[in-house]
């Protein structure tokens, strides 16, 4: 290694490096240029359309946005809380379901069948239906008198029911993609079934399906906006109230923007993770 760093590259290699740098600069300039051009075309086209000024005023009015901000932001905190609870409950339930479905013992067939039925059912049912059923069904059962279940709990339950089904499918695919010899190798060392799962299989499974899991997380981030149909004053419901007050749709755009901002870090993280995994698998080769 040491003589490698001390060695002066040949003039051919220096030429090649200079050429690569030049190419890189050109690509960057090209992409910046084309982006700017595209943006200019969009702006000019919009401003030429006759309805644009009205659309601009009803959807992108800064004054309305400022007025709606406190209420929408406050509602958004409710979305964030439901998201935080759901991440925890979905992780636990999704993993539990996935593990149930990978049990092999013939004696446990009923458990496996139940878990399979559950995932089929909840992956097929639109979240909005589940939200209605949970949001109005559970309170309708009239449990202990005087107990009112907060909407954020009901929302969390509905999201957990649906997303556990998705996440368990992803995790199960990951668990089954780990080569069977890994399980044998783990058991041959004397690890119990649970230990093999925890120490050997699940860590590999999660690495394999990491991007798919993060994808589900992104959809969950925006689906927490649906709890507004339960009557909770979340960002979307708050935006609705402000919209009605101002006769202007800007509050909805504002709420939408908040959801986008929330999603971007996760999306970027997913990209980064996928790229890193690809790099690791290619082990230095460039094609």
């Amino acid at each position: 290694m040491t003589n490698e760093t001390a060695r002066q590259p040949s003039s051919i290699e220096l030429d090649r490096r200079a050429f690569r740098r030049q190419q890189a600069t050109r690509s960057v300039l090209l992409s910046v240029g084309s982006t700017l051009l595209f943006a200019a075309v969009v702006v000019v086209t919009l401003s030429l359309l006759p309805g644009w000024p009205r659309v601009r005023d009803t959807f992108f009015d800064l004054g309305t946005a400022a007025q709606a901000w406190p209420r929408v932001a406050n509602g958004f905190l409710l979305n964030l809380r439901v998201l935080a609870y759901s991440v925890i409950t979905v992780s636990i339930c999704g993993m539990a379901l996935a593990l149930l479905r990978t049990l092999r013992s013939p004696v446990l067939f009923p458990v496996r069948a139940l878990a399979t039925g559950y995932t089929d059912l909840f992956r097929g049912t639109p979240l909005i239906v589940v939200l209605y059923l949970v949001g109005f069904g559970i309170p309708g059962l009239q449990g202990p008198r005087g107990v009112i279940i907060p909407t954020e709990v009901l929302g969390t339950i509905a999201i957990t029911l649906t997303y556990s089904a998705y996440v368990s499918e992803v995790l199960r695919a990951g668990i089954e993609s780990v080569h069977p010899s890994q399980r044998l190798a783990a058991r041959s060392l004397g690890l119990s079934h649970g230990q093999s799962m925890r120490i050997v299989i699940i860590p590999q499974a999660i690495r394999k399906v990491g991007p798919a899991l993060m994808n589900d997380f992104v959809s969950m981030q925006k689906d927490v906006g649906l709890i507004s149909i339960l009557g909770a004053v979340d960002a979307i419901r708050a935006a609705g109230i402000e919209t009605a007050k101002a006769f202007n749709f800007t509050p909805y755009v504002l709420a939408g923007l908040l959801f986008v901002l929330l999603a971007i870090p996760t999306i970027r993280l997913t990209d980064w993770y996928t790229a890193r995994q690809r790099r690791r698998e290619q082990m230095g080769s460039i094609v």
Partner: protein
Amino acid sequence: MSVLRLEGIHKNYGDAAVLRGIDLAVDAHEVIAVIGASGSGKSTLLRAINLLEPIDDGQIWLGEQDISDPRTKADAVRARIGFVFQHLNLFPHLSVIDNVTLASRHVLRVPIAEATATGMALLERIGLADKAQEYPDRLSGGQQQRAAIVRAVATNPELLLLDEVTSALDPELVGEVLELVRELGAEGTTIIMATHEMAFARDVATRVVFLDQGVIAEEGTPAQVFGAPRNARTKEFLARFTA
């Protein structure tokens, strides 16, 4: 007393009888080479001994314990036996040292410092100490197999089972792995190895067992089995390797 005793082991896959009554007693410090055609049941036998494969009849004694009794705790038995497969032994998400110390830490509950010291000494011995923190995919195939073998002996097992540990390797990597097996044998580790490396079996094994049609068709010292096979099928099988 034998380390391992097999009595009338039978194993079927569906209608196919793969093992049809295997009797074998293995004493301490023996190195047994199990040879036989592809599909003769060598892997099946080793997996049965490690309780990775349920048997259909017979008894397996490890020391004084009948480990084929369904009441035995299979995990505890496997912790007393080391097993190395043909390939994909190491866990790719764990560093080499974590692989080597895994069973000590999680099965024997050895304190981590002690397990690491033992593991590093083993890696030192096979010349992989500088790769301890690397992940297995950075190792050559031969290095991976040698790491897998020291992982199997890290817990001081009573018996080491090796299932064709060199058959997935490039020819130039075979030597270093066999050398490690030879050393372990010379140090007194009790070994049963399935192998297609006849020269190695002749060299290192204290006893050779020829598996054919589900039974032990011939067994004896390497000199007997390779030098003067009595069974016609053994002769036929060996002829293919000396051709």
